[in-house]
């Protein structure tokens, strides 16, 4: 309809559009452009067309205006219809669903496109032309206003009365536009509906251009950087960025290797030092290439023993370069790493940990960390050569001096020395624990992270290892880390260490409880990460397996409700751990079946709604879990017998039946695992005798169109008053 604004008058009357025709064609359709409120599509197009014509008038406005008018306003003209027909045929040929043409800000194309659209679709419905017109114009319009993303959400009521978010014609180029824009500007949230790309979408010209453009930008950046490096005379500080052709590298490796090997063979004559140093540095740079460092070429050139020898060179700069080379060789495959070890690289590297040059120390730490990280055997080799003492000294010195770079590296190397199974010997562990305890007090995230990882590796073992960790007094500090650094990368290893300790002796468990683990777990069990929720449940299950007092701590904790909730609604892995919590609690009863206090625990669980999710666990495809749950349910029903003995009624039987427990048990009689069906049968016989054949469908009954959720919702008949709800929602 008339879409009047300031510039309207200037353009003359040609720009007015037949609103009646438009609104008819769109029916009740509504659209939203770029998140604007939904509006009548007919109205939207009027405004858009006006704007397009106005902008189209930039160059040769008279002719374009007239033509636009003819095309748009006289759909009954013969020439126009002929064009429509021609277009129909054309589109049929090219597949009307794939129109990846850009209309942005190109009124000529938009008009051309409109010219060529069919007025009615195959079923005789209005739509194709008019919708495509709308979309193309909306896009063009949005492009003019520098809107970075166009999101058109469309709902339409078809003439035959259907109401549905539309896909199909028009949607494709709209999405093209979306994606092209997104490259530059990601800020706009889009409606999920229209992000749904056609299942079998093929190549898109605009996407491809976007890629090419991006590539060009990267090339330019590299070229620019290269030019700047020259101007800044950075050449000798910088490591080369671009990998030259490999063949050239290999041949020059042999040349440089000859210099280095000769130098070593001749016991390092002073006059050759500069050349040998230069060659080593050159080799180091090659080994530092991000892509395809020529490790094998360097090994084959026989350079590893030479580098090992040069570690003993009096000049620390030479030691540094050699250590760097060995570091990068050790960073390769296990085979490559082994070459460094088999040529006796480890002892001199450890020796240099007490070098006065901090650069050399750092480099050797790095090399040793790589070697130790390769496998437990390599790790033990490094340990046997006395790395721990020197490393501990280095850590204490760098921590004292605040040399964070070397310190981080050293702690990382230390964590690698503690990692893997079989675990390193207790003696090595004992010698590093005091240092780790001190590191926990530093405020450097990376140091903390690797320290926690080291502790988690150590504590991931038998009670003796756990006791070592507990006696090192790290538990309170770990708890502080967990409390204060709730969301960073130290959280996982700190929590894991504490959970590991919980698996230890009752004493160890108690230490962690005293430090307040039960206060931090509520946060963890609600984490968005399934892994964290799982570990939280695992931790609780270990407390629940503890002394009677420890079990009662769990019973009193609000965590218990969370556990039941996890058991009911979570990933299988989390549910499994939650099941262990419940099973451990109930186990306390089955190991003491006359203890009313223990039986009351079962009662608490029933009140928290544990039965339905427990029964649900019987259906999982995991025999061990099914067994565990059968035992737990057995204890639970047993506890019910004890509690109900005075009244002669087991109070848990009804909730068990309501949760379809009997049905489940009956199903399990068919189970292929003998133990499981025996258990199921014995439970059925013990508690349910001959009954239990009821088949009650708890799903809402759909057949008669009635639904009731939450049981006692008031009837809707006659109009329920929301304002009268007992809870004040305002």
């Amino acid at each position, binding site marked *: 309809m008339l879409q009047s604004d300031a510039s309207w008058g200037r353009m003359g009357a040609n720009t007015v559009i037949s609103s009646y025709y438009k609104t008819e064609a769109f029916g009740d359709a509504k659209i939203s452009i770029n998140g604007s409120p939904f509006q009548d599509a007919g109205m939207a197009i009027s*405004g858009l067309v006006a704007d397009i014509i106005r902008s189209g008038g930039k160059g040769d406005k008279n002719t374009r205006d007239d033509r636009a008018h003819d095309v748009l306003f006289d759909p009954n003209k013969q020439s126009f219809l002929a064009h429509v027909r021609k277009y129909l045929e054309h589109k049929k040929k090219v597949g009307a669903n794939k129109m990846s043409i850009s209309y942005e800000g190109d009124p000529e194309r938009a008009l*051309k496109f409109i010219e*060529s659209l069919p007025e009615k679709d195959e079923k005789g419905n209005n739509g194709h032309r008019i919708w495509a017109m709308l979309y193309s114009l909306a896009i063009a319009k949005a492009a003019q206003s520098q809107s970075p993303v166009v999101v058109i959400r469309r709902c339409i009521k078809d003439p035959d009365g259907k109401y549905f978010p539309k896909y199909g014609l028009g949607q494709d180029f709209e999405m093209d536009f979306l994606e092209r824009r997104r490259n530059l500007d990601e800020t706009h949230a889009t409606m*999920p509906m229209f992000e749904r790309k056609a299942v079998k979408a093929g190549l898109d010209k605009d996407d491809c251009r976007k890629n090419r453009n991006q590539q060009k930008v990267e090339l330019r950046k590299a070229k620019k950087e290269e030019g700047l490096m020259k101007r800044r005379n950075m050449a000798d500080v910088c490591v080369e960025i671009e990998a030259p052709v490999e063949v050239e590298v290999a041949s020059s490796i042999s040349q440089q290797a000859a210099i280095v090997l000769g130098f070593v063979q001749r016991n390092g004559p002073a006059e050759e030092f500069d050349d040998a140093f230069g060659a080593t540095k050159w080799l180091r740079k090659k080994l530092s290439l991000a892509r395809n460092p020529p490790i094998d070429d360097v090994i084959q050139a026989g350079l590893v023993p030479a580098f090992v020898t040069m570690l003993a060179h009096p000049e620390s700069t030479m030691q540094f370069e050699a250590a760097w080379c060995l570091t990068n060789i050790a960073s390769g495959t296990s085979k490559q790493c082994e070459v460094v070890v088999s040529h006796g690289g480890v002892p001199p590297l450890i020796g240099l940990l007490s070098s006065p040059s901090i650069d050399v120390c750092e480099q050797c730490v790095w090399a040793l960390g790589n070697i130790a990280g390769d496998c437990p055997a390599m790790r033990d080799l490094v340990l046997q050569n006395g790395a721990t003492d020197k490393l501990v000294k280095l850590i204490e010195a760098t921590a004292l001096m605040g040399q964070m770079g070397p310190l981080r590296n050293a702690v990382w190397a230390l964590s690698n020395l503690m990692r893997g199974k079989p675990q390193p010997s207790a003696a090595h562990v004992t010698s590093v624990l005091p240092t780790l305890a001190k590191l926990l007090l530093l405020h450097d995230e990376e140091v903390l992270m690797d320290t926690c990882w080291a502790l988690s590796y150590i504590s991931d073992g038998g009670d003796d290892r756990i006791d070592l960790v507990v006696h090192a007094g790290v538990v309170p500090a770990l708890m502080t880390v967990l409390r204060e650094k709730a969301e960073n990368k130290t959280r996982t290893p700190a929590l894991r260490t504490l959970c590991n300790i919980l698996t230890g002796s009752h004493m160890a468990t108690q230490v962690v409880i005293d430090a307040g683990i039960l206060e931090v777990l509520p946060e963890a069990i609600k984490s968005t990460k399934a892994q964290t929720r799982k570990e939280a449940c695992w931790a609780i299950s270990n407390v629940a397996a503890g002394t009677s007092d420890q079990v009662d701590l769990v019973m009193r904790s609000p965590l218990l409700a969370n556990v039941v909730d996890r058991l009911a609604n979570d990933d299988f892995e989390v549910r499994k751990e939650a099941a262990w919590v419940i099973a451990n609690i109930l186990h306390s009863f089955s190991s003491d079946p006359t203890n009313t206090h223990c039986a009351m625990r079962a009662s608490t669980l029933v009140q928290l709604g544990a039965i339905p999710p427990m029964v649900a666990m019987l259906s999982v495809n995991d025999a061990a879990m099914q067994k565990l749950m059968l035992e737990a349910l057995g204890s639970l029903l047993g506890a019910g017998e004890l509690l109900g003995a005075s009244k002669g009624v087991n109070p848990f039987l009804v909730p068990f039946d309501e949760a379809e427990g009997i049905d489940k048990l009956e199903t399990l009689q068919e189970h292929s695992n003998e133990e499981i069906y025996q258990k199921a049968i014995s439970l059925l016989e013990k508690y349910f005798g001959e009954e239990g054949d009821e088949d009650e469908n*708890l799903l809402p009954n759909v057949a008669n169109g009635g639904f009731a959720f939450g049981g006692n919702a008031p009837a809707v008949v006659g*109009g329920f008053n929301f304002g009268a709800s007992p*809870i004040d929602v305002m």
Partner: protein
Amino acid sequence: MGDTDIGPILLAAQSADPAVRQPAEQQLEAAKASNLPLLLNLLARELSNEVKELTTRQLAGVLLKNCLTAKSADLVQQRQAAWLAISPAERHTIKTAVLGALASPQQSARHTAAQVIGAIGVIELPHAQWPELIQGLADNTTASGNDFLKQSSLEALGFVCEEIDPAVLEPQANLILTAVVSGMRKEEPNMDVRLAGVRAMTNALEFVEKNFEVEVERNIIMQTVCEATQAEKQEIKVAAYECIVVIAELYYDKLPAYMPALYQLTLAALQKATADESEEDVGKQAIEFWTTICDKEMEIEDEEAPGPSHNFVKQGMGQLVGLLLEAMCKQDEDEDGGFTLASAAATCLAQIALTVHDDVVGHVIPFIQANIDSADWHRTEAATLAWGSVLEGPSDLALQPFMVPALEKMISLVGTPTTALPVRDTAAWTIARICEHHTASIQPQHWHVMLREGSVDPSGALIEPEGVLLMALKDHTRVAEKVCTALYALAEQVEDERNNPSNRLSGLFVTLAKALLACTERHDAGENNLRVSAYEALNMVITNAAKDTHVSVGQLLPLVISRLEGTFAMPIVSSDDREAQTELQGLLCATLQVITQKLGPQAAPHADQMMNLCLQVFASRNSSVHEEALLAVGSVATATGRAFEKYMPHFRPFLSLGLSNYEEFMVCNVAIGVVGDICRALEKQVMPYCDELVHLLLRNLQNPALNRNVKPPILSCFGDIALAIEGGFEKYMQVTMSMLVQASQTTVDTENPDLVEYLNQLREGIFEAYTGVLQGLRAENKATVFEPYMMGALELIRVCNDGVPQNVTGDSVVHAAVGLIGDLAQTLGEPFKRVARSSPHKEYLKALLKHGKESPNKETGEAAKWASQIAFKD
């Protein structure tokens, strides 16, 4: 106008005859300008007058509404202000008239009235005016015995809810909900009323958040919506399912209690739709529900939305996937277009695969095995599509056992001419998906079967036919297009080996180039996007071709040039012809660009021809072609270096045009990049053009209408110019430096990561500009020219250092900033060092350098080391 009957004027304004239409339009415009209240009053009276023609009543309503609303924000404001400026009494008269029309027995009259009410409500309610509106509409729906009035009042409520800021209606949410629920409940005998109720509910969902928090109320809403899915009337069912989709999107966390029912409902609807075509729209919405659930659970997994995930998809997929697979067998016979039940189901399946990863595999394999060899092509196609749909999401490990037999099956389906076309099409698409996501599973023998060159003996008898994919490039355009996608994906995989002496594409290069070039020449290449796909695949093959193919790439260049030449001789009689020509020119320019980029100086002998053609292409009015041609010219400049000078006089006008095209900002952006290419190519010889270039760049910077993302590259471009003309930049110093200082003062909401990202780009651009200027001046010993601007540069460094602790300052900015510290020290020497080594400057400079040295990015670390060396150590 006075008491004029407005009906005839409205009709005249719709006339096809300009002589009739134009005066009427002018009359309406004049009325609008001179006395808006009167015009609106007339329109409202027309709308509400039951004796008038329905046509004019509706026209009047629409015009009335259009006087109150608009799309662009400024127009909206203007119109809202105009309405609010009308006296309350006059407005009251208009509103009363329109409200009266709500009860009209004419459907379109009362519908239009509802729209007008909606529009007025949207303006007045936020201003605390018309407080009785919602109550009135609600009363209409509950108290009135008039079904027309009920229906249109619900519609009006829906319109208001849809467009208004939810906060405005929140206080009246109870009232609205009560009305809406009463309208949509199953006891409502009038189906039109009920439908209006369901739709109003969909619109209202967003602002009833508080009600949705209360279990009792939520239960009622859910109960009523679920009951509506069981209505008789198709439209109500579809609307109800759509409502459920919106609920899933808005209130995922509240779904667990309702999931058993929703599960049963949606699956039943899907099953019904598969069996009964008339239920298709209901079925599509039911599928959309699950696709939305997938979206939600993926968002939670990616931590884009708060958790926890209820894993509905994982739990429900057992039956769901089976039903989707059956729905996928309901393909449209004729064409693979449109969003049918089958394609909705396939989309959903692909989303499920992305959501549950490995777990989906076991659910589709039996179907695939049972149907892939079916005699009914529908089932074979569905099995093929099912496999292709689950290729992204599950791990290699989970798919691996089926990968080889599946690939071989796909190859055999594509290679067998008797396979039904839709199946060949989908099988080729599936091969493309394998190429994209699982290249490692493709064994050498498969490469051979797919891509070997055919061989004949000396007598010409066939020894071995050519590979399946090469043959399929000659198949139906639908199949050939998918093969192009596959080849594109294959070529894309070797990106990392692009600069190697040789790579996996080397042996195939000539074969692929020949086959794809032949494909572009097919007479039917215009269908199904085939020509575009073939050229794009060729471009990717060239882009990632290794060094040992350069000779062959070089041989392509004359061919591509002659093809581009040929486009100017294409006969143009229709606009379709013009479109085809433009498209082809764009594709060929792109191919020229990638070849030139690959060959570098080796392409220089062809530069004359290429430039000549590109300049002709610029005559086209199409923006994307301009982008392609500009990119090609940029590559030519890089390839030719200083020799590019001779093209500058001819290219300059088009470059200026591109730089001035702020409306099509992508063109502008590309043109800015090309300026950089030219600066690096011409160096000092670019001087004569700099006045104009600098002028245009500055003008762009000042233009608020230019997309902001283009602005950082402009700043960086000043650096390119300065590096090229070195001391010659002196004359632009004052104006450009003040721009940099202005740009440095930009602040953004640091809570918004997108804006922070933009801020970083902007700052990087500023630093690059400073660096270019400093290094350029240094080359000609003009360092003192910069001294007045030193403090401005330092200030930005300080600000960036302040942003380090909050993670506002990204690594690339640190890199650029520490580089600038070095440049300042290197260029300005003592005057800078004196300042830098005194407080307060030394603190933040050293802090930033320290931060730079600890960067995980090697280049940043190196730059920081270099800078601290020359700024602080001597």
